[in-house]
């Protein structure tokens, strides 16, 4: 941050910084994997009074994924962000965003979660608006309004919750909420939380800001937004609805209904779009539906599916947006009607891009298949056949859309494009920039292939996470210490 103007140094520092963060997150993950949930009481104030940072397996996994993506996106950004943007502090703010993400995954009390959310929002605003083109500013206005509104709603929910229980520590809340006889106010509070997180994670009636803003910023930014930001909302939802509030039939029905409509509207929205980035934006919405569905079914198996899906989706979505960026660089447009002949011109690159595209669909050996299997099995187990129908519908629509993209972009004849002035095609990039852009895509593709072929360990990990989430007593004991028993 001292080197506000020195762009080259920032790039190198940024990559070094994310590598260090990745190493730390790996250490954290392996520690949690071996020793179970870890807790830090900041300032040595005991829970439930002080600020607590908790890392259970879910948090550690997500922090690990953030670390991986952080490195990938730093490298990609180093290759693709122009100097004019970097001079406005792109890289420091990018890392601020990563800090916010890690913080919100580790937060152990609900107000702390709110603060981290705000850090994420502020830094994402800046990333969204750096550059200041017309579309960017308009997208930012929408993103900004809806997200502040979501924070206000979230804070209202916190206020009500504090009024009911008099505590903010999540483990303590879990105990106190369970002890309350009259659930009316608690359920209202849960609904306010749901609306707040719903806006952030872009579920059905609240998603309109996402396709309006996600395609406007540079592709490196879109990659991290698409990969991680909406997932923070889903993470918060999973955390709040497993730890603090217990799901009753009414809440489950709300979640499942929302999931169905999200799947449907996301898929149909993606169908009519022609801008590649917008198609991916709608696909994000569609696939948020899978995760909410898994949470809503309320069985451990379905939750396993939802978590596996989240892990897979974070990697693949970030990669997709980077691929989208690469396609834009090569073709000079994001409109799929105008692209074409990719396969004839760049056969190897096309194969590379096929990996994230088809992982997303979930063709059997690739990574999208296994979590869907768990979700559908979970649905069969709980007898939610309508929801299974929607999940299948969502998958087939995704398949159709990806097939369409593939046919349009890679096989069709290319049309003449007229890119904006001072546009630099991919060929015009220096060798170093090309390598920096390609490395993260290759890396994440291999990772998603790995998730697909080596699904066993990830499945075991997801099962362990959902086991922890279904039985919260260990979490509570560890956070509050022995005295709570």
């Amino acid at each position, binding site marked *: 941050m001292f080197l506000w103007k020195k762009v080259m140094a920032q790039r190198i520092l940024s990559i070094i910084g994310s590598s260090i963060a990745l190493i730390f997150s790996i250490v954290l993950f392996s520690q949690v994997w071996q020793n179970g949930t870890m807790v830090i009481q900041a300032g040595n104030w005991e829970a439930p009074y002080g600020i607590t940072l908790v890392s259970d397996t879910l948090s550690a996994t997500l922090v690990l994924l953030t670390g991986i993506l952080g490195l990938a996106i730093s490298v990609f950004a180093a290759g693709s962000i122009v100097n004019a943007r970097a001079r406005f502090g792109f890289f420091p703010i990018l890392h601020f965003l990563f800090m916010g993400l890690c913080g919100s995954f580790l937060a152990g009390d609900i107000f702390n979660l709110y603060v981290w959310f705000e850090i994420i929002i502020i830094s994402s605003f800046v990333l969204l608006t750096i550059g200041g*083109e017309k579309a960017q*500013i308009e997208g930012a206005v929408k993103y900004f*309004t809806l997200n502040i509104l979501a924070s206000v709603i979230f804070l209202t929910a916190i206020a009500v919750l504090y009024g009911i229980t008099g505590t903010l520590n999540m483990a303590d809340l879990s105990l106190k909420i369970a002890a309350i006889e009259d659930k009316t106010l608690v359920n209202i509070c849960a609904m306010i939380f749901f609306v707040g997180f719903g806006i952030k994670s872009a579920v059905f009636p609240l998603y309109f800001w996402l396709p309006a803003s996600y395609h406007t910023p540079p592709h490196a930014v879109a990659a991290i937004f698409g990969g991680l930001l909406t997932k923070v909302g889903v993470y918060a939802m999973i955390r709040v609805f497993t730890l603090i509030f217990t799901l009753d039939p009414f809440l489950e029905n709300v979640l499942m209904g929302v999931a169905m409509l999200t799947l449907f509207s996301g898929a149909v929205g993606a169908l009519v779009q022609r801008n590649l980035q917008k198609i991916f934006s709608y696909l994000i919405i569609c696939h948020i539906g899978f995760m909410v569905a898994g949470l809503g079914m309320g069985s451990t198996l379905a939750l396993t599916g939802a978590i596996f899906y989240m892990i897979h989706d974070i990697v693949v979505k970030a990669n997709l947006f980077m691929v989208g960026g690469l396609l834009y660089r090569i073709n000079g447009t994001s409109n799929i009607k105008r692209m074409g002949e990719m396969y004839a011109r760049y056969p190897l690159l096309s194969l590379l891009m096929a990996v994230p595209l088809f992982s997303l669909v979930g063709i059997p050996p690739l990574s999208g298949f296994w979590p869907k299997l768990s979700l559908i099995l979970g649905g069969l187990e709980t007898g939610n056949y309508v929801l299974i129908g929607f999940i299948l519908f969502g998958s087939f629509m995704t398949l159709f859309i990806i097939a369409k993209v593939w046919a349009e972009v890679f096989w069709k004849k290319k049309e003449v494009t007229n890119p904006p002035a001072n546009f630099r095609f991919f060929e015009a990039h220096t060798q170093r920039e090309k390598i920096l852009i390609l490395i993260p895509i290759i890396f994440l593709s291999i990772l998603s292939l790995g998730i697909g072929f080596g699904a066993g360990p990830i499945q075991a990990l997801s099962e362990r996470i959902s086991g922890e989430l279904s039985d919260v007593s260990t979490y509570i004991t560890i956070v509050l210490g022995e005295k709570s028993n």
Partner: protein
Amino acid sequence: MEILLALMTGVLYAAGIYMILRRSLVKLILGLILLGNGVNLLIFLLGGITKGKPPVIPDGPAVLGEVFAAPLPQALILTAIVISFGLQSFAIVLIKRAYKVVKTDDLDEMNTTDENA
């Protein structure tokens, strides 16, 4: 006092939501600010009000007296105020940029991002 605060919270929420539903950018931001203040009052209200007993330890004794105002809501509100200060100053810069770039204050005209291109 509680009733007054409850009424104030209601008025702030209502005014904030009304402002958000207008089409002007400036009113949108004003609405968000009002909503933010409404939430802060709500936290204050729900935290319980104790008059004239600040949670500050006087010079003599080492612990607080029997009755004191809960410090937590105040800390929460302070944090919320700081955060909303940052967000609002950013928002104001943003709407100024937006006004310069788009040359309108009307939210209905800001729809280039929804064009299918």
